[in-house]
């Protein structure tokens, strides 16, 4: 389920990068790779480059990563999609960040825009 959810995020971001104006404006030309993974290295890397988004199961190169203790927690937190769930998991030692947290915050904003912005148009 966790891997499926990550794949769903990848599709969502890819779709938004092509169809969502607000998303494209926010992302701009930023070059950044964000990973979501578990401590035993299961996850996905989301790559933002020149306004396009791709993803990969390769977890070797990224600028920042959201690291969960296990896939069950990861699924629960990601599915909730709320800052509170992230905070709670972090407070309980079930989540930490590799690299700069501000990139993860940026990634969170990107997902929110992809999910909630209605500023869509085929581009």
């Amino acid at each position, binding site marked *: 389920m966790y891997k499926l959810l990550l794949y769903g995020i990848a599709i969502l971001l890819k779709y938004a990068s092509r169809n969502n104006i607000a998303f494209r404006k926010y992302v701009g*030309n930023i070059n950044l790779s964000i990973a979501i993974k578990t401590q035993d290295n299961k996850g996905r890397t989301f790559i933002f480059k020149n306004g396009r988004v791709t993803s990969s199961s390769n977890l070797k190169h990224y600028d920042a990563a959201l690291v969960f203790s296990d896939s069950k927690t990861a699924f629960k937190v990601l599915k909730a999609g709320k800052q509170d769930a992230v905070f709670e998991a972090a407070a309980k030692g079930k989540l930490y*960040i590799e690299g700069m*947290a501000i*990139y993860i915050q*940026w990634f969170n904003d990107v997902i929110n825009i992809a999910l909630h912005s209605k500023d869509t148009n085929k581009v």
Partner: protein
Amino acid sequence: MKINGGHLVARYLSKRGVKYTFGIAGGHIESILDGFHHYNIKAIDVRHEQAAVMMAHAWSVYTGEPGVCFVTAGPGFTNSITGIANAYLDNAPVVILSGKHPLRDDLKGALQEMNQVDIVKPIVKWYATCYDIKRIPEYIDTAFRHATSGRPGPVFLELPPDVLNVSVEEFDVVPTRSYYTYRPDTDALKIAADIINQAKKPLLIGGSGVGFSNCGKELEPFIERTGIPFILLNNGRGTLSDTHPKSIWDIGNIGLMMALSQVDVLIAIGIRFNWLFQFGSVIPAQTKVIRVDIEPTEINRNRTADVGLVGDAGSVIKALTPLVKQSNHDAWLTDLMNAGYAFIDNEIKLRKIASDPIHPVRLTAMIQQTFGTNTLYVVDGGDVSYFGLTGFKSELKAGVIAQSSGLLGCLGTGVPFAMAAKLAHPDKQVVLLSGDGSFGFNGFEFDTAVRHNIPFVCVVCNDCAWGMIKHSQELSIGKERVTCAELGVRHYERVVEGMGGHGEFVDRDENIEQALIRARASNKPACVNVLTDPAVTSPATPLFYQSLKME
């Protein structure tokens, strides 16, 4: 017995208890300088007037007293502009005494004739030109009153030779000191107390208003009683120790931003919700906000307050404390800290591990380890501001100050602030962490430090670039198009040695500690030039990049 205008200036300052002034000599203000000599006021002569204003600004931060600086007419004045603008955006009480071309020669093409007042107007709280020698004390008194009353700020007084270089019969000079305070009404205090008493996840943020109010003795019992976690920023930093058990400085700015997303009650005292708070947007809509500020227009700026308390921070906190109940928010604080540590996990690890090339987080940790918490830390730079502000902990008031992260983002403040910190607290160690770009602006002030025997240790975190600009450009336009951002390897420590200070060059992790120890032991103004990883950036860079993105 007669007295000239310059001596009258110095006499007033002496009676007011001014011990130090900062500036550069000039013909137009010669009689003031002679007055300083006569009245035993120490004049610290710098190498560029912007440093003089920055030192006066810093003096106000470290002592709570207004800083006084002097600049001569024309270029002396224009050189001071950056320092004045910085003090203005920082709300710092600074009295700038400026020379001016002779009124007698006005409109004739006098030396350094220019309209100074119209240039300085937008960046001072008050300005004036004195036309009558007899009114000099009254004008300076008015200047001090404006600098210190309400929200503090810099003030500018022009004194032409027509009033400085003439004499009058001596007369009594009695500086006025007004001890008054602002306090909010009782109903507003009760509403605020009710909100605080019902809070489950409260947080207190104090800014420069807390620092200039010097309200540690009021804030401490408030924190003890309410148990509210807090963070003190800007010039408020250190009003209570960074190591206070309720302080969240251990998780730094990242922890603060994360905390803001969770708090149900935010008490914001003497702090502006400016771009660093994304104009208030980082505070959730449902969070109840209590704002305390001496400036009424700040109360609802960028975020409507649930209750606004206008007044001096210390007075408001003192009035509020008896109305709030004894509470315990330790469970919330524990969650907050644990979550914060998880968010800065990387930094915590970096502090402990030797790095090659040297990571700035590691360098900062080594400095902290060597100098401890009984030290005044000054920080100057772009990315360096982040590393210093989050990496250093001090138990002293204004123990960690980074003017470069203020509203003007003013690089070059480091050396002047470090010198003023040492003058204000000669018994304390002063350490400056400077970027290599920043060092270029006022690095020559090491000459001032040597001439006036002001020892401090400056560590240059040298990534051979304008790091924040470089990494921001890499994010936005790509690594292959970085422009005007590289600086190269430069031996700043040799420049300092050449001026009579102590120099160290470090490019290996294992040499950092001993270099710092030797620099401290030299008891001279010292520069430890440390080559750091040029690929590293800080969280401040993406924030900076995002704030200027327009489409």
